[in-house]
């Protein structure tokens, strides 16, 4: 049993921390977040060409680095810590995972090298307008004919949906419900019949879009594995995404704590630093506890995710993905919200200004908590396993 980073993983973490503190400082974040795309295209190209992060867990046979989910989580933690504005999460944690889990061999060969080598951006669109995250969220519909498929529907809350070049779309057979009748399709976002609208969001560091499908005609090779019965694949993709978000939340929660501790060590009131007041110390201690427990949750779930993606992965261990990903998402959502909220409190008045970065973390905490289900939602999933 070795539940610590290997030397190589530690190196990945350190180099990510170094690079991101350079390129994703407060000024860079603020410049990117007010644009519609939400990211600096040059920086994305640098990430793809110099760091090769988009390829981290793509298998070598498809042009990737072939590393594991723990390495990916180590990167995501740092991206969350530095609030990186980029299509990384949507491309790698939604797009790549969807193709890895549900893609046909031909789709993998067609798309993964383009992501690994050219930095093609991608995302997953599965939620309709009903605000749910389970199978019932899939509202878009399709009909099959002898040439292929015709898709219709409205998809909402799609991360980077207005900029992604490649879409993985979930749709259901007309008249089906629940986990039945779901298929996944992979298609370029400029396919005719698709219109995409950026939705301005409270958290400006993470962009969302609405996508409308109007009689989108797809050839037969656009459908992914297990047509009509693809819910288990989609569920796995969502669970892997939960692990990824939790890793980002861990980083964000850590940064909210570090910023608050640094500030309270400097700020003096009543003739001493406010960090010397026990009320402040105890809040900081609670924040650190949550960060450390979150870290255990994230890296355990990342180890499970790794077994799930690896061809020769341990099946018994991989079967824990549902539980491990929900636990990580529930715990880290609460942690990030608590830490980001508490950090505003510890900064006092300046914490409430636009100028200080506290609000950026506070808003990211809420948007990531909501996305893919908040902590109550995930606790109910766990409760159902234990009690029903």
């Amino acid at each position, binding site marked *: 049993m070795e539940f610590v980073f290997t030397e190589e993983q530690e190196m990945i973490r350190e180099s990510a921390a170094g690079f991101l503190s350079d390129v994703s400082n407060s000024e860079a974040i603020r410049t990117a977040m007010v644009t519609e795309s939400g990211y600096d295209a040059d920086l994305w190209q640098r990430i793809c060409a110099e760091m090769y992060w988009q390829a981290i867990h793509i298998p070598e046979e498809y042009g990737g680095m072939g590393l594991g989910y723990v390495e990916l989580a180590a990167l995501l933690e740092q991206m969350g810590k530095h609030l990186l504005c980029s299509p990384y999460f949507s491309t790698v944690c939604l797009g790549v995972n969807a193709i890895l889990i549900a893609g046909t061999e031909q789709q993998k060969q067609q798309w993964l090298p383009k992501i690994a080598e050219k930095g093609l951006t991608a995302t997953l669109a599965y939620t309709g307008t009903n605000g749910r995250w389970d199978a019932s969220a899939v509202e878009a519909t399709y009909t099959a004919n002898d040439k292929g498929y015709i898709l219709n529907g409205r998809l909402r809350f799609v991360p980077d949906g207005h900029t992604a070049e490649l879409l993985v779309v979930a749709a259901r057979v007309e008249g089906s419900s629940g986990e039945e009748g779901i298929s996944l399709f992979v298609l370029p976002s400029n396919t005719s019949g698709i219109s995409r609208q950026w939705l301005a969001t409270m958290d400006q560091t993470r962009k969302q879009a609405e996508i409308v499908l109007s009689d989108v005609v797809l050839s037969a090779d656009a459908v992914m594995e297990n047509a009509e019965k693809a819910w288990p694949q989609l569920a796995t993709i969502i669970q892997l995404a939960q692990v990824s978000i939790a890793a980002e939340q861990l980083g964000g929660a850590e940064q909210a704590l570090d910023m608050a501790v640094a500030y309270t060590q400097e700020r003096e009131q009543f003739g001493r630093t406010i960090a010397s007041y026990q009320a402040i*110390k105890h809040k*900081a201690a609670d924040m650190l506890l949550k960060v450390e427990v979150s870290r255990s949750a994230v890296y355990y779930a990342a180890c499970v995710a790794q077994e799930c993606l690896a061809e020769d992965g341990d099946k018994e261990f991989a079967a824990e993905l549902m539980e491990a990903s929900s*636990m990580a998402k529930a715990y880290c959502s609460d942690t990030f919200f608590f830490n980001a909220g508490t950090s505003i409190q510890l900064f006092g008045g300046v914490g409430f200004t636009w100028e200080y970065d506290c609000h950026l973390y506070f808003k990211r905490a809420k948007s990531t908590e909501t996305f893919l289900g908040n902590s109550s939602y995930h606790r109910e999933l766990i409760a159902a396993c234990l009690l029903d």
Partner: protein
Amino acid sequence: MRLKFSEADEKFRAEIAAWLKENLGGEFEKIRFRGGPGDEHMYSSERLAWEKKLAEGGWTCIGWPLEAGGRGASIEQQVIFHEEYARAGGPGRMGHIGEGLAGPTINAFGTEEQKKKYLPAIVSGSELWCQGYSEPSAGSDMANVKTKAVWDESLADGAGRWKISGQKVWTSLAHEADWCFVIARSEPESKRHKGLGFFLVKMDQPGVEVRPIEQLTGTSEFNEVFFDDAVAEDIIGAPGEGWKVAMALLGFERGVSTLGQQMLFQNELSQIIAIAKENGASRDPVLRQRIAEAHTGLRLMRYNAMRMLSDTSGDSVDKSVLVYKLHWASWHRNLGKLAMDVLGPESEICEQAPYDLTRLQSMYLFTRSDTIYGGTNQIQRNIIAERGLGMPREAKG
């Protein structure tokens, strides 16, 4: 990262599981799942016999080095032992203070002669220990010890011995113990952590009086201990170095037994879940949330412990270590309340008149002490903020 146990470790697991299956039955059947925090007053003679049985099988002090009488078991094997022990319903250990605290301390700081004198009886389960740190005016502020130690040359046929006078309090299992390790002031007029000694005192002597303290459970597992010129058999480390020894001992306190403790917690949580399914509490949406939260907290506690135990850097300020006590103590206190809330009105009804509590009632009440002993939650937070985050130290009065 590698989360699996090796094949050799799994073989070890099978070995201890088989031994427990064969031996933890018959006369010992009734003490399965008994004893331990909150139930410490139950079946002490049977549990003493069990200590000896364990020792015969070579299953006491397994983490100690071979030369100290242990098995030199690896961390993984110790984890496995504690897990299997708890899974099988192994009774609360009465020898845990000797095995987990006194022994490792004597082994680290004692002379060869002292090791020979004290360790074998701990390994064989024949002598029990208790911990004499807290005093009426030295609780969280442990350095405020007032108990005195005075050198008396006339004792032990002119070889000389330290004599102890003062009062200790909250001393768990003092009424069962053969020995107590006592921190006392060996230099008169010394202040705080300077001038202390770490003494080994035999309980059965005229200068030692043990008075049980009744707890809020109506039972008593801790005591007041009065020393009136009690003779200390030995001192571990030099006079004046007691604080160093006492602190090192607290470092032995956390560690591998935590995974066994978690298995006990799992037994409690499973019982609560079974009750919830039976009485319909499992349909209450708020209780469902709380049960899921308890389950999550326990799993994460396990992953935290796995991190803590794999940390090979030996860095005692590793953050997963710092937060561990605060996490489990707070979690367990919440579990106690959850148990009562799942039981609903039945939670009030005792096992028997006049005041015989059910196991879950005892557990619920006892969890209120988890956040007090071994460093209160407030003290834990001070330590986390100071050592983990580098925030200013508390002003000392």
